[in-house]
């Protein structure tokens, strides 16, 4: 049988790319790595300026709960104005 026990599959070899304790910015054109401090409630992406509320799955496992609405709205309105201006 063509089962090679030693050879790692793609998924197994990609496993070491996983990072814990960090998350990515939720702007899909940015996806900058963000690493909030333990218990921190909000985080702003230094790359694109989007701001997020942070939730903690476990004390060592942060995730984005949702956007900081005022910042999100402001960025969207500015972007729309710029695009319409062009």
């Amino acid at each position, binding site marked *: 049988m063509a089962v090679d026990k030693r050879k790692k599959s793609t998924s197994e070899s990609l496993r070491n790319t996983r990072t814990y304790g960090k998350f990515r910015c939720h702007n899909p054109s940015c996806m900058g790595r963000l690493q909030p401090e333990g218990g921190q409630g909000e985080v702003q992406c230094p790359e694109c300026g*989007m701001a997020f509320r942070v939730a903690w799955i476990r004390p060592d496992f942060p995730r984005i709960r949702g956007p900081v609405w005022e910042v*999100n709205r402001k*960025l*969207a309105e500015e972007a729309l104005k710029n695009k319409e201006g062009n």
Partner: protein
Amino acid sequence: MALNRKIGYVDLTTGEVDVQPIPLEARKKYLGGRGLDAYLLYNHTKKGCDPLGPDNVLLISGGLLTATCASATARTHVMAKSPLTGMLGSANMGGFFAPEMAWAGFHHLVIRGKAKKPVYLYVHDGTIEIRDAKHLWGLSTTDTQWAIREELGDEEVKSCVIGQAGENLVRFANVMTGVKNAAGRTGMGCVMGSKNLKAVAARGTMDINIAHPVEALEYNKGFIDQITSAKVNQTQGTLGTPFIWGATNSWGGLRTRNFQLNQLEYADDIEPERLDEIATETIGPHHMTGCFGCQVHCRAQYRIPSGPHAGKYDEGPEYTSQGAFGAEPECRSAETVLTGNHLVDQYGMDNLEVGSLIAWAMELYELGIINKKQTGGLDLRFGNDEALLEMTERIAFRKGWLANALADGGIPASEKIGKNSFDYLIQVKGMSNLHSDERATPALALNIATASRGSDHLRSRPAIDLYHLPEAVLRKIYSSPIPYEGPLSSEHTSYEGKPWQVFWQENCYMAVDCLGICKYHTVFLGATLPNFEDWPKVIYYNTGLEMTPEEIWEAAERCNMLERMFNLREGLARTDLKKGDMLNHRYFDEPCLRGAPGVVGLTIDRKKFKQMVDEFYTHKGLDKTGKPKAATLKRLGLAKEPSHLV
């Protein structure tokens, strides 16, 4: 062993039952589950058959690996010609039914005909019995299951059933098992209802021999670890599928107010963390449950915290219910989401269809296309939680003119409503879309446009396209098992290479559905989860069947082609807005108004979309009209269908 599970043929008109083995040739070509169902559907129905007539066949199946020592081999597949779309009807659910059916000796059921009065099937250790279901008619999905257990005196019986919606021939009624597991799309429950078939119950104590048990057990341990150590699954195991909400709503991927906005602002009360709090408050800290053999345990449990249904137990809500009872109708209350989820679970209806159609009706109401007389007195404006839930109930029982029209599905309803109502209907091939907004993601737009069962995220969606993965990682995933040297782009707004990603995912998800395992165990929401290269080991250790990654790929490609051939037979035409691989004009004409700066202002480019479809057809071996080329059919061994192997 798994390979000796049978096909049970049941004719409800004559009461005849026949049991046949599955030839190895059929196994190798179509694997099992959805793939073999597609073969059975193509072979056992005739062109143009009435979806609600006795000649339509209802197929219920487990996969090749169901109940074996792989991971999460829990999925049940249901297939028939769809009464909603008139094309492929196909739906998949978790829970415990398919494993029980496999222990009872069966992988596939082919049910045709129509019973004179309500009946249910009892599948038990190699036998199939047709039993009276008069006493079950009218019961909810869960009450039906508990009543069958009581009648048979066996708490271990697992059933897949229909609720009132299926009995009332709501064209998007579910087949359900457990409290909330739903084969929820394309109206498979409606087909069951049309056959007077209330339930299929299973109970089995037959061995499934594992070909190499020691290796299977050891390999499974590592396999599970690979799956559960992924951050995405650890998050799912805490919050369930709603975990996607936070990201999608942040960047602007939620279809809100039918299709007017792409974000539900200030919806903190229905964010997954809040739903998790409610579940913790009502059930306790350990409130997650799982399907058979699955360690991801992504299903939350809850009791409705307040309102007229306060205290009722249910499971979920899934991400889909957040959209159906949140984003689309622009409602922001957790009580509404949890109550709405409970109603569709109990009546057995597709939450996606319900939410989407009501949101559509809300837009029509606000535009004055339908009036308050037609809504039966309901003030059906966006954000009216009470009207949303009332309309949900009415649809299940077809109560009132509008609810009765909506219960027939979007396209027939648009014909009844008239005017330009169809222009506002967000559907593909007659099936409503999930509450996702694909205007900023060409790959996802191509996925819903070309999916075999209509607008759908579980057939070919390259969800990882939104992760901005390095091109090298994309290359590693998407150029195996078949080499691919064309373009790939990390940018979600790009059109480059997306058709290949959609083609690859289409085959990946088909393989998963044939094996009977869950999509959270493959490259769907996480890039580091198992795929083609990992499956040969699982298949070999468990069943003894030797298959290479390329052979699994080819089988998946073949099964996808059969589904396309079925759709072509039933009228698929590339640019037809009602039966084609085509999107509503709003995707091309109305820009995104919310979300991340790079998303705002985007639409799908018509010309580039057409090019993507062309490229996708080329990958699949189709001509420009979307029909398979003769060489493709020959390569896949489909030139002589229907071939009646089973």
